[in-house]
């Protein structure tokens, strides 16, 4: 199983039946494929729908039904559409149970940077700041390192997405939970040792005596 699949599968285990979930573009989108049996969730797309799903097949596109990237999607029976103010009312008002977002950096306090690299990439924050400030649970799904450098740092060097800590960080090496006391190592990926996680993490980690392996099977 490749790293992205591993991350997506582990994140999927965090979703509960009936949850309203918003998946960011890229890796987080994969989470939808790995919902555990018996867990039915509603996916929101912040451009204005609850109940999005993948397009069933080519040739079924509707020009008026797209995801936040502008790509064609489908909708489940019972989907509902609304304007942007309502869409972010759901996000900011605490109605969104879970958002899964990509990350550039996460710091020791659990704060996320994922929307810009000054001088290089200034795409705009889109809905990311509202999602991180408003969702009940914010799960970061990302590679643990990029170009050999840890993305989990003592302090983010990139501009923050929110001053609010995220709820959980899932990487190809570990599951890490930001707590008031610091970053808690919750799980390691299959075949990865605690020592490997520590070696690849630039932030301090709280390591309990027993660190279970992610309950992921192929």
């Amino acid at each position: 199983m490749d790293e992205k699949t591993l991350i997506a599968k582990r994140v999927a285990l965090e979703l509960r039946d009936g949850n309203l979930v918003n998946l960011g573009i890229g890796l987080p989108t994969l989470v939808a494929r790995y919902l555990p049996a018996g867990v039915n969730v509603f996916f929101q797309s912040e451009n204005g729908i609850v109940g999005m799903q993948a397009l069933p097949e080519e040739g079924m596109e509707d020009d008026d039904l797209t995801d936040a990237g502008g790509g064609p999607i489908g909708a489940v029976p019972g989907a509902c559409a609304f304007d942007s103010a309502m869409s972010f009312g759901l996000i900011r008002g605490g109605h969104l149970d879970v958002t899964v977002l990509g990350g550039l950096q996460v710091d020791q306090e659990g704060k996320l940077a994922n929307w810009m690299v000054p001088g290089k990439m200034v795409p705009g924050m889109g809905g990311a700041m509202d999602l991180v400030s408003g969702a009940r649970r914010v799960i970061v799904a990302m590679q643990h390192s990029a170009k050999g450098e840890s993305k989990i740092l003592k302090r983010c060097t990139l501009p923050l997405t929110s001053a609010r800590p995220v709820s959980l960080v899932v990487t190809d090496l570990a599951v890490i939970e930001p707590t008031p006391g610091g970053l808690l190592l919750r799980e390691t990926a299959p075949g990865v040792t605690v020592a490997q996680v520590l070696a690849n993490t630039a932030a301090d980690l709280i390591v309990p005596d027993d660190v279970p392996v992610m309950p992921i099977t192929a």
Partner: protein
Amino acid sequence: MSKVRTLEDAVALIPDGATLMIGGFMAVGSPLRLIDELVRQRKRDLTIIANDTARPGQGIGKLIVEKLAARVVASHIGLNPETQKQMIAGDLQVELVPQGTLAERIRAGGFGLGGVLTPTGVGTVVEEGKRTVEIDGRTFLLELPLKADFALINAKRADYLGNLEYALTARNFNPIMAMAAETVIAEAQDIVPVGVIPPDAVVTPNVVVDLLVAKERRHG
């Protein structure tokens, strides 16, 4: 007093330098005919308030490529490298606003509110230069209302009076923008007689729509 205008006449009302709200999200739900006509009439120095600048050849992206915009207020410009290029070159002023804040600022403009108090952006670069308000021990940013000279709206259906109905994710910013501009110009995929759209299906009331763009003649 009919609200119907030809595409050309409707856009002719917009002066250079105008502030425009333009509906749509990555061009979905954008008023594409109105945008094309803005390009054809070469309206310049526009301030564009919109969710995004789409892609270069698409929707609002065309206004960027044609260098008709002097200023953009948007939440996302990442899929239009031309916007970023002009911004970095200093030819285009860009204000980036969190998407939910953008929606509420536009709504506040149209709903007569003095501003928006949002937790989004507190403790980030978005906070710079803004007032904060403490309420029950929590900090909120005071974000100011947005208004425009014109709102350019895309609807699924309009009736002769200008009542508007939207479709799925093409709704997005259109209904709130239709409340926040001095003059509201709507284009619709279908125009139907009064009474065809039932009262509960109307999302934008006719009374806020000033002009309705006539359909192109298909016959004769």
